[in-house]
């Protein structure tokens, strides 16, 4: 790991000012950034430590939840009231990483974690457009079993690794962002960018901006939710495929549904066609199967990850059967 200078500001304003210096990076829990720095993927001259900022609390009220960006993953997942209101988020958090990592990692940092694409994380490979714009993509013709089948471009097919983000997309959450120019709220469905020609740009965050909070709408009446994660080993692993489903049930039928999936897209993947098929649907295996059949619409599998299409459909089917049971 290269050396750096460490700034430890106590206010948001001081943190934003400290990040004005060239090659500065913010550090929160540090569980991802430390890995990237050790592997020389990130080589900041200056780290701005966010831990001293007053962003480590969350509230749940009639208007929904406001989660400070520095709340630790474990603290949010362990809160009984939060678990009751937002089971899909709590399940996604507990399915993430390890107990030790969850004790360190923050909500804001989780949303900004970088892809697990091995070519991105190994500087021994010259070609990675995300790490070195214009250098090519080693994954498209390489080892790509874990890569995206949705949202990829000729320049990048890396998946987004966050489970939390998938659950928040299904809840229509918003991200509160602050920079020297002020504060703004961005719907999470617009927060992440498709790779296109610029895979090095992953979110709408501008340089020097930080996430200050995540805003989650109140859970509706009759709403049930669930997060299902499938992976190569039982725990402490990133998703091959995951599904976040939020279903409003009325008189034995599905009134409305919101569905997002992880492990399949270059960003947390919302599935509007499935949602449309589920609206007003009966809770029968046939109706669910009809909706699930549209899950992989537009998928473009690579040489090694075609299995993600049926896995995606089956994961979604199981999540829907669980939540409507």
């Amino acid at each position: 790991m290269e050396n750096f200078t460490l700034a430890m500001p106590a206010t948001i304003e001081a943190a934003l000012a400290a990040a004005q210096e060239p090659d500065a990076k913010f550090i929160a829990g540090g569980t991802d950034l430390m890995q990237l720095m050790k592997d020389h993927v990130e080589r900041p001259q200056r780290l701005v430590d966010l831990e001293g900022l007053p962003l480590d609390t969350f509230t749940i009220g009639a208007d929904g939840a406001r989660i400070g960006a520095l709340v630790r993953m474990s603290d949010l997942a362990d809160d009984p009231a939060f678990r009751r209101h937002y089971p899909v988020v709590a399940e996604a958090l507990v399915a993430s990483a390890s107990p030790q990592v969850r004790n360190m990692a923050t909500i804001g940092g989780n949303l900004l974690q970088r892809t697990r694409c091995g070519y991105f994380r190994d500087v021994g490979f010259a070609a990675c457009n995300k790490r070195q714009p214009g250098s090519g993509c080693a994954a498209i013709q390489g080892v790509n079993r874990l890569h995206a089948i949705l949202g990829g471009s000729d320049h990048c097919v890396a998946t987004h690794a966050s489970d939390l983000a998938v659950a928040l997309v299904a809840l229509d959450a918003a991200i509160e962002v602050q920079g020297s120019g002020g504060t703004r709220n961005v719907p999470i469905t617009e927060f992440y960018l498709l790779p296109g020609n610029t895979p090095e740009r992953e979110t709408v965050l501008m340089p020097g901006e930080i996430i200050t909070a995540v805003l989650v709408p109140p859970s509706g009446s009759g709403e049930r939710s669930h997060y299902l994660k499938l992976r190569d080993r039982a725990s402490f692993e990133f998703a091959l495929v995951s599904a976040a489903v939020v279903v409003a049930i009325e008189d034995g039928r599905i009134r409305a549904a919101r569905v997002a999936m992880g492990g399949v897209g270059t960003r947390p993947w919302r599935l509007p066609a499935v949602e449309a098929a589920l609206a007003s649907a009966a809770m029968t295996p046939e109706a669910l199967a009809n909706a699930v059949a549209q899950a992989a619409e537009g998928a473009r599998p690579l040489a090694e990850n075609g299995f993600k299409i049926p896995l995606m459909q089956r994961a979604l089917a199981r999540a829907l059967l669980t939540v409507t049971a």
Partner: protein
Amino acid sequence: MNEFEVSRRRFIGASAAAGGLATASGISCAAVAQTGSPPTRTPEMIDMTLEVNGRRHALTVEPRTTLLDALREELRLTGTKKGCDQGSCGACTVHVDGRRVNACLTLAARCQGKAVTTIEGLSRDGELHPMQAAFLAHDGLQCGYCTPGQIMSAVALVEEGRAVSDSAIREWMSGNICRCGAYTHILAAIKDVVQGG
């Protein structure tokens, strides 16, 4: 500490010193020159106090020094192990302010004012912590390299109230990898502590 342990530790220390001499004689310098690595940036050293196992230590660290390296290289508390150095194996698990964390992913300079507990801080009045005793009684190890991290994680797991079933223990111990595969005995040791306590 028995005779064997003392002599073994002395042997390891002497070997490490010999390795250091070999490095100073130019072997690793030549390797760096060949790979064309850029010169290391001059660090701005940080003076700090690190509280470990109830004792305060005055330290001067580089900003990039991890808690793991500060414990092992500066304080010579080598019970905490470096496995993957990437947060993936759990061998470096310690408690910071009562929470289990990966010391390899923690910057030492960010631990000022916090209380760190390592495997060396578990025993009381010369008596092993019940979890240490249970790992011995149940053979919860083969090579033993992951054991300090396993025990630190297991102690935290019980305090967190997670040890409610075999599957819950397995899930909440998943941040600690055992290359020898002693998982069955590790599970038995943890259950023993829960049932005995």
